[in-house]
């Protein structure tokens, strides 16, 4: 097994009394793209949001178990969720740029995290982040325009630029291309491959072809009657798609259900 970026042990997430994710043990390899697939309502997104404590913001959510990141449980008492979220960034399903200029969209996260460099250094950082998200050439002449003036695919890449500008180690992507057209989707997928050189990418997707195209590893979650949100199988993407060990995985990827 490869070097681990983040690991869950016995992860359980409750919405009130409802157990949405049960007993998940998962080791996410560093600098790889890992896809999480599974039918609707199987807890994919909930697992993802448990990894940077975004679930804390939703009332009545309880998390049990441990999530080890850099040798530390991110749910430990001395850990500040604000710091966790800077180091484990997130890109959402619907592009959600701030109603500010393109430049400010990228610079804001840097600034609020206590950036102390000069204006020039900030400019460089913004350019780097936009280049990193393959957006620089399209927006370099209009950095002052509103982020909302961009197309959907560009907006999503702006959100990725915004996420990498604060130098996270892991980027969580919650169906990042599901609201985009096929061409914009392809650009995001290429970007994910490139980002994996420097970051660990976790992507939740409904689209099995996307998972097969883009990921190195795949985790399959499902929901059986009375048993929601459990991990069925985890392994190299090629193995999951060509030679699944579990019959439920096979049924799902061959399109027999889900």
């Amino acid at each position, binding site marked *: 097994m490869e070097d681990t970026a983040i690991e869950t042990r016995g992860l359980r997430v409750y919405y009130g009394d409802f157990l949405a994710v049960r007993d998940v043990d998962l080791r996410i390899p560093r600098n790889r793209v890992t896809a999480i697939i599974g039918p609707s309502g199987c807890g994919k997104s909930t697992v993802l949001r448990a990894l*940077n404590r*975004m679930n804390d*913001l939703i*009332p*009545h959510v309880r998390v049990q178990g441990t999530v080890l990141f850099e040798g530390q449980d991110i749910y430990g008492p001395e850990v500040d969720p*604000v*710091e966790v*979220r*800077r*180091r484990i*960034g*997130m890109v*959402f399903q*619907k592009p*959600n*740029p*701030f*109603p500010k200029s393109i430049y400010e969209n990228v610079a*804001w*996260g840097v600034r*609020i*995290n206590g950036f102390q460099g000069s204006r020039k250094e900030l400019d460089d950082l913004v350019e780097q982040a936009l280049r990193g998200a393959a957006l620089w050439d399209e927006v370099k002449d209009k950095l002052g325009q509103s982020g*909302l003036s961009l197309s959907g695919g560009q907006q999503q890449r702006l*959100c990725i630029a*915004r*996420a990498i500008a*604060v130098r996270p180690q892991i980027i969580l992507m919650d169906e990042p291309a599901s609201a985009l057209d096929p061409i914009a989707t392809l650009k995001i997928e290429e970007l994910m491959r490139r980002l994996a050189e420097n970051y660990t990418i976790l992507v939740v997707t409904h689209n099995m072809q996307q998972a097969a195209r883009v990921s190195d590893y795949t985790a399959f979650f499902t929901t059986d009657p009375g048993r929601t949100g459990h991990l069925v199988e985890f392994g190299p993407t090629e193995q999951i798609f060509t030679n699944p060990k579990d019959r439920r995985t096979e049924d799902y990827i061959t399109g027999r259900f889900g």
Partner: protein
Amino acid sequence: MNRSPAFAPNLSSRHRKGLIGLALFQLATLSSVVALMALLYTLVDHAFGYAAIEYQVYPGDLGMDIYRLDDLPPETLAQVLAEYLPPQVYRSLDQDRPLAGRPGPELAALVIQRVFQPKVVRTWSLTESLLQRERIAAQARAELPYAEVRFVDWINARFLSRPQSSDPLRAGVRTAILGSLWLMAIALFTGLPLGVSAAIYLEEYADRGHWFHRLVQANIHNLAGVPSIIYGILGLAVFVRGLAPITSGAIFGPAGATVNGRTLLSGGMTLGLLVLPLVIINTQEAIRAVPASLREAAYGLGATRWQVVWHHVLPVALPGIMTGTILALSRALGETAPLVVVGASTFITFDPSGPFDRFTALPIQIYQWTARPQDVFRNLAAAASITLLVLLLLLNSTAVYIRYRARQGR
């Protein structure tokens, strides 16, 4: 058409019911429009029209126009005073301060008060004035042979710029307008920060499932419906009586300590309390309308709750907060009952100059004029009502404009 036996052929009766409903809705709309028109008509009808005025000395006899006296040289006015005033009155006035040295407007006022002594003996409505001019003229000739009949606009620049007076021809609403503006400003400065802060706490920080939060929330909605006179009683007990040393300005030195706690500050803070629940509710709604995706984006970058609120939630909610606050203030602008209880003065001729002054306000002024026995004050009340309505309209259109601008920016 294929008609299946399971469905009764009732289409025409369904349409007929729809038409009856539509007719009712149109009737309801029409009646509200008629009611509004009637209101406007009554106000305008009283704010303009012929008035019969009797004088002790007729300005026309001296070749003067009572409304143009300020244009005349002071010497002419002093001469009129010397000629028409009883000698001993003239001497005592002159001994007070030499009449020759006094400014023109002051002399003009003296000429009107002491020499012309105009008195409005009868007024006619605008409708009568327009449609029955001959009848009015005949009536005036027969019943009021000594009166001058002239067309008076009770609302005009003079009315807006003059202080209160017991002489209806000289009374104005400047004191009341200034009082109302002071009250609005004080209400804004107390209600807005308190209301916005409370709304931010309730929306962004408090645990919404907690029983205490639910209790507070329910009570804010109840408070928004509490009759305004109750707020007046609260203001009387807390601000006028309880905090009298502060609201009278006594602790800030003797300069403001001429009155008790019945000051602009007490009135304004009472109105601030009155608008507080409205500001909280409107702000909460504006904050709730900020998309959750925006908050998530900011939290996802490692922002603290305060950074999310200050940098993203408040700027996006700001137009909504401003609109809601202005609408709440426009309710306070029309409030009369709490100000009566808190102790607005009905007759004040000097402008308020600070928060520790006694005050009157437009609705108070209107109320006081309608309560007077002389008919002519009804015309002044109508003119003041129009002033109040125009102020309200200005406030509300500001709110509409802010909302429009916010939509454009999106």
